[in-house]
């Protein structure tokens, strides 16, 4: 039984999500909700997503699925036959919240509108790529297409590369978080009024809502000095022109003279690397943009002569927000994460390993990582809980 002491202990959720919403279901499961994920007898198609475990003495496990389908109870059913249909209805009827993505496994068979009529307290969060209506309502949008239409690709990449999407699942992790927010907000309304409801979520709108400067510059460029209305892709150079990744010895580092440009110039003077920065024109506050550009040029020259790790640590000692560009290997061995015991044990279908921990720490209700199971691993336990043998 998935009884935990997490923040959402006791909450029952049915997860009928594909890639577009599964991260939201994961967030709620990792916070302690009892989240059941039905899958066909041959297994969830997302169990085929790589990377996989490469132990030649064991059946490969999808590490993608183990991450995104963490803390679930897996229920194997065939919605095409009468028994599977009945089991699915029982799973719907035990849920406080159903998370669905249009076209995902068992969504149509779940008959969610009828379930809401039977149980007005039920919350349904329905995710579609573009909304339920409109000229693009039937368009297909896997991650790359969602990123392109959502405005991500136009500003990601460099002048000499194509437009790029974010690595991995970054776009659907945005729609996924919104799924969790929509579900918990609707739940708050249930707690106050007893009234459930349907919430309709658009992946496209989710992605567009998280573009930082893109819409701001379009709407307000006249109020922002030297800011174009439309930004091109331009590598790591931030829209403010004051953050960029530079090459140092032994690696790359994100360098910025923000927030205290005078302290940055002083540091360059200390290092005898300031070039012409002591000229009076660079101390005129009205010329801050030109000064910033010149400081960035001088920094490029100086950073190239510095070893990356001590440069990063010294900058941070001086309260300058430099960022060492770390590889996955470096991140996995990061001293801050180690000191906070951030990585946690994982049990992947019997194989012990280590993996990502909580994105937030609650003082009273711990976030936990439970064991990960094979296809349909919890079917019998759930049937017993639902009194299947008695009721059917």
């Amino acid at each position, binding site marked *: 039984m998935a009884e935990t002491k997490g923040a959402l202990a006791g909450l029952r959720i049915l997860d009928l999500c594909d890639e577009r919403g599964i991260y939201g279901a994961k967030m709620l499961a990792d916070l302690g909700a009892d989240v059941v994920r039905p899958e066909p007898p041959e297994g969830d198609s997302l169990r085929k997503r790589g990377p996989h475990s490469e132990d030649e003495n064991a059946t490969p496990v999808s590490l993608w699925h183990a991450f995104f389908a963490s803390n679930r109870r897996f229920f194997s059913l065939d919605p095409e036959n009468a028994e599977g249909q009945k089991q699915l209805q029982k799973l719907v009827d035990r849920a406080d919240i159903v998370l669905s993505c249009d076209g995902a496994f068992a969504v149509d068979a779940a008959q969610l509108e009828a379930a809401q009529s039977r149980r007005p307290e039920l919350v349904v969060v329905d995710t579609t790529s*573009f909304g339920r*209506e409109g000229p693009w309502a039937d368009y297909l949008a896997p991650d790359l297409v969602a990123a*392109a239409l959502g405005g991500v690709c136009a500003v990601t990449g460099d002048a000499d590369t194509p437009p790029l999407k974010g*690595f991995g699942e970054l776009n659907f992790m945005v729609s996924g978080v919104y799924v969790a927010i929509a579900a918990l907000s609707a739940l708050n309304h249930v707690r106050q009024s007893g009234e459930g409801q349907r*919430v309709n*979520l658009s992946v496209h*709108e989710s992605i567009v809502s998280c573009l930082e400067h*893109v819409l701001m510059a379009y709407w307000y460029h006249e109020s922002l000095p030297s800011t174009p209305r439309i930004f091109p892709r331009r590598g790591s150079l931030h829209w403010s022109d004051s953050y960029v990744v530079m090459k140092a010895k032994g690696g790359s580092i994100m360098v910025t003279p923000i927030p205290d440009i005078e302290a940055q110039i002083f540091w360059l003077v200390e290092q005898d690397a300031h070039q012409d920065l002591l000229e009076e024109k660079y101390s005129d506050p009205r010329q801050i943009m030109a000064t910033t550009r010149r400081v960035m040029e001088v920094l490029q020259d100086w950073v190239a002569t510095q070893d990356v790790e001590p440069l990063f640590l010294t900058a941070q000692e001086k309260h300058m927000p430099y960022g060492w560009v*770390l590889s996955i290997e470096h991140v996995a061995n990061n001293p801050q994460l180690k000191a906070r015991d951030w990585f946690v044990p994982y049990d992947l279908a019997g194989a012990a390993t280590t993996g990502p921990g909580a994105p937030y720490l609650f003082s009273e209700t711990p976030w936990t990582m439970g064991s990960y199971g094979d296809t349909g691993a919890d079917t019998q336990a759930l049937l017993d809980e639902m009194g299947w043998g008695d009721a059917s």
Partner: protein
Amino acid sequence: MSRPLEGIRILDFSHVLAGPFATRILGDMGADVVKINSAARAVGANKATHPFYIMWNRNKRALAVNMSSEEGRETCRKLCEKADIVIDNFSVGVLDRWGVGYESTRKVNPGVIYIQMSGMGEGGPWSKFVTYAPTIHAIAGLTALTGVPGRSDIGIGFSYNDHQAGLHGAVAILAALESRQNLGRGQRIDMSQFEVGVNFSGPSLLDYFVNNNSSEPTGNKLPYDIAAPHACYPCAGVSGDAVVDERWVAIACMTDEQWGAFKGVMGNPAWADESVFDSASGRVENVTRLDEGVTKYTQTLSPEDIMVACQKVGVPAGVVQNAEDLVERDPQLKQSGFLHTDEGEYGKFGVTYSDKLPFQFEATPCDIYERVHRVGEDNVAVLQDWLDMSEADVKQAEEAGTLK
């Protein structure tokens, strides 16, 4: 029909983007978000007339408090006693030094939920590090992974992690509200924006721990799965030489059936019928020739025409939309009214613009989008509502410099 978070009181000490984005979404859903600012702190992106501030602080009430005065801190102490949520994204310990930290507040308000959205979290050798989103992207592995093979200097072209930290903060707050129903008390949440960022590479981190693989950037190719074509292709319609004028289309054939349909869209060129392109693995192995062939098709057409032709036969394709496409042309956003003008006029700006919630509640619609408020604009209303202060007392405190 009330909005789903009506009645929730949030005291918001946060600034810049991550924290304000968390409280913006909660305000959109009806929470009473009181944003604390002051004349002294309202500089740069915290200035109430800076577009950055305008973008992330709609649907909030604005209270000016001079935290360098004892009276100002006392006002905040009383507000904390009435709050359901207190949020900040200062470095660890600032609220404690002001006397409005969690430990002191919970003694008088045991139901209160505190969330601290600091850069690095509490404790650890990097806990004092200063971070903005580009810093987090770099140290969390996101910059190294988003790019093309052989380069680690590209990364995500906007402050992705700031938005995501805000959204994760909102999830944490809402989960703690639900938990309060069972526990009968609030709690404190320590959120590290760094750890939020590291979490996004979950499958890659498992790949490292299980298989000892350290993932590398793959451009627009899927890092672990096979699909082709799966790229952005150049199109016709360029009005100048600048990068910003380029037109591109993303095409992603996720199945052999979609590849078959796409060949038809291209007019079944002879090269595409070669048997090496029949399977996804063959297309990936011959991706250079594949992409050359696809580019020959795309480069004479507009991305809009290609998208429509592809989607008509079930091939995933989409225009690489820039800001102008999103605001002026995107028919889907127009149909839902997603990009809009806020309610109320705002000084020299007249109207202000924003996006809406990306989800709609059928029973409790959230369709109030009120413009950002000036620093201290709601001093009287907030202090009357939360602390039963009279208008005369508020005015007196304003004149004394406590509320400015």
